[in-house]
């Protein structure tokens, strides 16, 4: 039913009254800051503390800064491992709790449990559990004969430990979106495939997977948006170390803005990261679309 006949009895479209507070909120706290970020990234602070126009100098110096480029490399590598891992695991876990059964509801809640923990708590918990000397994880690894590991304190393991931490907390959340997708697949399709003699694996590849493309794409893009700007655990556990192994871009931006007080440079870095997120998300969407 079209709405116009009953919307015309007011001079001003009533939609605007309902929208106004939200539009003001989103404009002031999201759209203006993002515009400020883009404009501010072309400015810097002079020695006298005044704001001076620098043009693309911030960008030029960032993009030729080997430290920043290595940060970007670390962040991209982290995403390259963590995002596909989270997609695959959340789909697998969703398949495990999709069909009803005894205690399945309880398992679903338990798998979701880490999501309700803040990233700060997650970071603190795993920092304690993974402690090379005092952590119980190392006690278990030693008892089963694998031997003690450095985890966050080991240059070669720190990034992998961050992947584990992010995945531990993320999988339960993405599982919900995968479940939403699984529920949307008509049961009759599975039934038909079953009658045709398709095995579980065949049904998964030819019925489930093609129809799960949208939730998979959503999870991949949303996980990218979150993991590209991974910050709190780095701030709490490693402060970028050991030896720069977890020097994520967002941590560098935080340091540039709040320790070195170079806002123009921090804003330029933020803008670059936003662009990188957008580009990666677009590439992911394109890849998932052209798969058929």
């Amino acid at each position, binding site marked *: 039913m079209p709405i116009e006949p009953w919307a015309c009895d007011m001079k001003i*479209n009533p939609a605007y009254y309902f929208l106004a507070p939200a539009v003001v909120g989103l404009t002031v706290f999201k759209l203006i800051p993002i515009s400020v970020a883009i404009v501010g990234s072309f400015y810097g602070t002079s020695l006298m503390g005044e704001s001076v126009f620098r043009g693309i100098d911030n960008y030029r110096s960032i993009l030729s800064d080997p430290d920043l480029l290595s940060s970007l490399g670390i962040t991209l590598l982290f995403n390259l491992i963590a995002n596909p891992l989270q997609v695959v695991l959340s789909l697998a876990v969703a398949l495990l709790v999709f069909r009803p059964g005894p205690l399945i509801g309880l398992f679903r809640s338990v798998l979701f449990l880490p999501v*309700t923990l803040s990233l700060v708590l997650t970071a603190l918990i795993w920092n304690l559990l993974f402690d090379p000397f005092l952590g119980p994880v190392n006690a*278990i690894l*030693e008892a089963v004969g694998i031997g003690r590991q450095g985890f966050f304190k080991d240059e070669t393991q720190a990034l992998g430990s961050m992947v584990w931490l992010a995945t531990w907390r993320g999988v339960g959340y993405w599982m919900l979106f995968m479940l939403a997708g699984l529920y949307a697949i008509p049961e009759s399709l599975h039934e038909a495939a079953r009658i045709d003699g398709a095995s579980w694996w065949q049904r998964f590849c030819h019925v489930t997977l093609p129809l799960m493309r949208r939730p998979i794409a959503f999870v991949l893009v949303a996980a990218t948006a979150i993991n590209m700007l991974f910050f709190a655990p780095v701030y709490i556990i490693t402060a970028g170390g050991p030896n720069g192994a977890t020097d994520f871009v967002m941590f560098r931006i935080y340091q540039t803005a709040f320790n070195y007080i170079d806002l123009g440079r921090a*804003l330029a870095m933020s803008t670059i990261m936003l662009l990188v997120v957008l580009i990666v998300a677009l590439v992911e969407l394109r890849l998932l679309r052209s798969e058929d």
Partner: protein
Amino acid sequence: MQARRKPGTASFFRYALLSLLAMVMIAPIGWIAISSLRPPEEIFLHSPQLSWRTFVPEKIIWSNYEMLLASDFPQAVLNTAFVAFVTVVLGILICSAAGFAFAVFDFPFKNALFVVVIITFIMPFESIVVPLYIMVRGLNWNDTYFALIMPEVASGFIIFLFRQFFVKVSRELFEAARVDGASWWRIYWDVALPLSWPTVVAGALMMFIHQWDAFFWPLVAATSQDLTMVQVAIARYQQFEQADFGRLFAAMTVASLLAILPFMALQRYYIRTIIDSGFK
């Protein structure tokens, strides 16, 4: 009918896998909670060497919690509860109204505006922290409750969830009320909002947990002692040179429980709302 894999084996593997996963998810939180009941000097006494004592305290004490109560932690909990409560009330009102408008009315640039809403929730908060901080400082809002509450009130994701709910409500319902002479405000307040209570519950839960978990923004926007939020307080406990582990573990347990319990009580609505909102 087709011969299928024996349900017994498949079911066994399914539950074995689920039990293993459940262990991985629960054990870390459980270890923190159990350790919070140990005397501080015992917390790391049994963790380096695996024994049953690693998981079972020698004796259970509550003094860590007594110390926590006497510290600045209760103030941080109250601050966060206040910030979360105000955010939830304002946020649900504003976002449900906007979701209602997107679902029920036609107006110019409706689709373009909705795309903007979607963009604001895809855009990660971290990417605007610095400009937001500059703005808030410009408004002289830094170190006020305003700074902690206002940026979180209008949420693109919650607007989206309400829009998805109201779109599915039959328009005849609103029309009937309209014919009876009800104003749009009345229809929203008396018909639409009560009808959407599962989304209200889910949205309130999301906004509550979001504020309860907030770290980066409070860290930069509210640095004074009186305004400390829970996560910032806990991170600070950990950074002291001689970390007081008894207090740290107790604080971590309280902060986890205060996020887990409301979720456990209300998770049905949360899961339903996400599943119904059309992520398919």
